């Protein structure tokens, strides 16, 4: 399924999930399953003013493209979109979007899950938290669970 051209975007602008789904589906009848992952800026206790997303221009896009290529080699996808925002993002706002399309749902689910695991651990983006208190902003620490999640796919490869 190497004929699919994934849509990759890194941008300070917000994205429109409905428009992205429409873009992927328009005029087609070969898609049986669409899985959409939206990552949002979360703030459960009102302590966060905003997240600041830094990225490595050039490499960020290249790495998302490499992840997309891996997913397309691994699953029979009929469409793929990856969008990552950068800059200042407020609680409740969108951060990242992954949309996978396939004839069947298993491929679409697995590819979206895989892409998010590797996007978290491989794509050069960094989050800084700006507290609502006005205190010094803090860089978010990487979570070891993200590495564990990504490692699940290596274990599957080794089987």
């Amino acid at each position, binding site marked *: 399924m190497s004929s699919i051209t994934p849509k990759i975007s890194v941008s300070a602008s917000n994205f429109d999930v409905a428009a992205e789904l429409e873009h992927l589906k328009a005029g087609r009848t070969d898609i049986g399953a669409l899985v959409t992952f939206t990552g949002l800026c979360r703030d459960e206790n009102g302590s966060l003013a905003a997240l600041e997303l830094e990225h490595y221009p050039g490499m960020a896009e290249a790495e998302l493209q490499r992840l997309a290529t891996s997913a397309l080699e691994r699953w029979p996808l009929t469409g793929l979109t990856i969008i990552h925002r950068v800059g200042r993002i407020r609680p409740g706002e969108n951060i*990242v979007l992954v949309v996978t399309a396939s004839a069947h749902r298993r491929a679409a689910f697995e590819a979206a899950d895989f892409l*998010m695991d590797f996007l*978290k651990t491989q794509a050069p983006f960094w989050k800084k938290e700006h507290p609502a208190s006005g205190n010094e902003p803090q860089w978010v620490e*990487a979570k070891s669970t993200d590495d564990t999640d990504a490692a699940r796919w290596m274990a599957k490869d080794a089987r």
Partner: protein
Amino acid sequence: MKLLYFAWLRERVGTGEETIDLPGGVTTAKDLMLWLSQRDEGYAYAFEDPQLIRVAANQQHVSMEADISGADEVAFFPPMTGG
């Protein structure tokens, strides 16, 4: 060679980008990191915990043992936290 730093590595080093002439004897990413960390206090602080340093050569992830002597662009950064 162009060097790039991101996130708290950038803040500790004090710049996001600089151009250097690679000194003799520096071949791997680890060599470069050790050389940089001896430049001044900011660099020493940035690279104090090697376990938290990731490196890319020409915009691709490489290991600390990779030969980066021929790269045009080498970047150092902390573990990624996007998504």
